[in-house]
């Protein structure tokens, strides 16, 4: 699935939690949201992208700081079960 689209969606999730005063909680919440609502294919693609491109830059779009933090700190629980 198109990585640009996934990055845009992920960044917008980040925008919401970015407004929270408790940074640590916000980062954890971003990861929780993606884990709870993103289908495995989507999470796999995001993780694979970050593995290829650790700075999160996809050219036209790039992953926001809070997203980088959230995904990197929670790689295990974001990786789908099977």
């Amino acid at each position, binding site marked *: *699935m*198109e990585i640009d*689209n996934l990055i*845009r*969606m992920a960044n*917008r*999730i980040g*925008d*919401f939690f*970015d*407004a*929270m*005063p*408790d940074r640590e909680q916000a980062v954890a919440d971003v990861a929780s*949201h993606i884990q*709870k*609502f*993103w*289908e*495995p*294919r*989507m999470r796999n693609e995001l993780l694979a992208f970050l593995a290829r491109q650790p700075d999160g830059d996809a050219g036209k779009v790039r992953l926001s700081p809070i997203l980088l933090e959230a995904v990197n700190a929670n790689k295990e629980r974001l990786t*789908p*079960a*099977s």
Partner: protein
Amino acid sequence: MLETVIKRDRDYGTPARVSEQTVTLTIDGQAVTVPAGTSVMRAAAEAGISIPKLCATDSLEAFGSCRLCLVEIDGRRGYPASCTTPAEAGMVVRTETSKLRDLRRGVMELYISDHPLDCLTCAANGDCELQDMAGVVGLRDVRYGYQGANHLDDAKDESNPYFTYDPAKCIVCNRCVRACEETQGTFALTISGRGFGSRVSAGQDQPFMESECVSCGACVQACPTATLQEKSIIEMGQSEHSVLTTCAYCGVGCGFKAEMKGQEVVRMTPWKDGQANRGHSCVKGRFAWGYTTHKERVLKPMIRKRISDPWQEVSWDEAIRYAASEFRRIQAENGRDSIGGITSSRCTNEETYLVQKLVRAAFGTNNVDTCARVCHSPTGYGLKQTLGESAGTQTFDSVMHTDVAVVMGANPSSAHPVFASRLKRRLREGARLIVIDPRRIELVSSPHIKADYHLQVRPGTNTALLSSLAHVIVTEGLVNEAFVSGRCEAKSFQDWRDFVARPENSPEAMEEVTGVPADQVRGAARLYATGGNAAIYYGLGVTEHSQGSTTVMGIANLAMATGNIGREGVGVNPLRGQNNVQGSCDMGSFPHELPGYRHISDPVVRGAFEADWGVTLQPEPGLRITNMFDAALSGTFKGLYLQGEDIVQSDPNTQHVASALSAMECIVVQDLFLNETAKYAHVFLPGSSFLEKDGTFTNAERRISRVRKVMEPRNGLSDWEVTVALSNALGYPMNYTHPSQIMDEIARLTPTFAGVTYEKIDRLGSVQWPCNDEAPEGTPIMHVDEFVRGKGRFLITKYVPSDERSTRKYPLLLTTGRILSQYNVGAQTRRTANVMWHSEDLLEIHPQDAEDRGIVEGDWVGVQSRAGETVLRAMVTDRVPPGVVYTTFHFPESGANVVTTDSSDWATNCPEYKVTAVQAVRVTQPSEWQKRWSRFSEIQRQLLRERMRESETM
């Protein structure tokens, strides 16, 4: 013994009164006790004594004009009208005396001296109160004779497609005028002229169709004679039995009596005891049910290998076996998660439950979603986070206790008409109104209704506006501190309070962003916080945005901060769009949730379903509808079972959806008609309408009501039976023989439904969930003592501008909505006479924007966005502000969704239908998309016609 005459509902004459005080009086020697304020007429009726009446009916306040209901009261002079006389303690009333008999006969003589004597051939024969009263008073002759001036030659008005107005039969009782005022609130009718010249006038003595009449039918229902009569009654005669059921259009969920002759519907009349609608309805529910017998209904299953092939009509067995084998083949070749299903928000709870069960248990995947994705999914998310439950908090009745109503991003006059009528009734009683909408919706200014504040927010800036309202409440000391400290999480409140108090969230700072003057925002906020019971009603103008979920949370924040939750007259009220969209969400149609809004990853919940269903369920969330399209285009999603949903017409970015479907291998559509999506389908399973099945719908009030079968399914099977057959063909056994068994299973597995049974619904009329041991008869008002999640949670709602912003290339903002006479994609209403009111989607454009572009009324206008282009006819109006254009999406050829984009809510992917950056130019021909659509649609219609010829030659 066969019942051959329909029992009419008991009419008590005047409305019921609610009072803690009672009075006891004596009527005809009988002691009767009633609430204070009840009329003598109603008190008598409740004791089983029917006082003759013509101008009184219990849905309307007493009028006192016909003078039939006169009674004698000890100690009072003359003969008071029992309808306008309140019962008082110790009163002694006589309803029948020789003097009263003479008076009543005299009144009837006058009526009949100017009335046709064609009872035997009249459409109201058997259901005429004038006839009844003539009989009751013993009228034998009319001493005036019939040679005098009369109205017998008055011309009929047959302009309305559903009912006739025959003034020759009118007794000027005023019931229709009063119904249009009190019940509907449109004020389209009046009496013009005086004395003998008094005549009912629609508009200014205009035909009904040219007046302000919205065809709700309240006047027809109220009319005691054949003056206002349904055309279906005129054609078919009186019905012989009736069945209670629930409307299949909007989220109000009106209770109806389907009046039948055998298996044919004669008319639908609103059920007086329907707790959602209380005897009222709109043009769609009451009159637009003809689509169920429309000739375009596809009644036989069809299959085809490619969508360029003609359809082949086959038996049910063959179609089901083919669909099942295709799904299994695709899974074998592409993996378990390469197929999925979409449940219908038009179908019953039992049917949606079965579809999600089929997807999870038979397909083995969580790729199931429902149309709530594209409308109220942000409500589900936002309210769950803040209050703990994904549903509205009140009943519709609650509005009668509201002092300040906020209507945000909703146009109930068009989309929830029966609720709008109730709201208007309350507003006429003195409640205040705040409207938050870019358009000047009907509620802003209509007869006897004027909004105190109309905040014309720029599309896409709702969150900013709510933050500024919150700023006022917090910085001006208007927070209900007691409520917040007792009922809400202290830390989340503190964080939220600090956030909204920031200067950048003030109305003055936000004015630039929202376009709403700061003083208006301050005024509205103060009114909401201090005006008494304040309730927020909101619709898709809140949810269908990139910050839809955030805005819902903003609404909940405001309600909690001001203590407006947990009792009558307040609350957070999402106006759910479809008849069963609440239900389909409740039933676990979302890819991440099992029935009862419990996450699929929860091992305890999942375990309970696994034990009951006998399968292992996947713990990871599945694909949402929007994700399904992306996956289809990347080649990992190839099969779809779609029940009662037209994604090609209703989802945004039509070209994207069409490409995605074209990339798939097996699309199974279960629907009534060959809709837009079916043109891309490989298997067509004919569906059944709400008249052809048993089950339940859940409306916006969480009210579960019965849907009852009144005719055998014309396609042979109810929708739930089709799903059962498909599941069995896939190898997952389903053995249900009646929908009540499905509800029993739902109750077994879902704590909020634990106490729901068909028997209970029959007994109580309807039940609002949660219904379980704590609330055996259901829960009208939620979060009364505590929130479902315990303490309410405030969430910070920072404004993030949408990607859809006006630019040089696309300087206007397009927003979308609904109108009264058409319903959503129009699959049902376009196949009824409702097209007389709205036969095409129009583009509403402000006079300034039109002038800048050389556009006048009626011109063809090309609407272009980054997603595509379509052409619509222009309607120049100042209902929209400059910079905003508006259209509806009821006709597939309009292509409104060709223009909408993939911008969507961050939390739920609910499409941002309400904000699309567009340009409008005057054009002389349809768009490229429309030309292609025309050609494609014609080809598909041809393929359907070729199928029919095959079956005829066989």
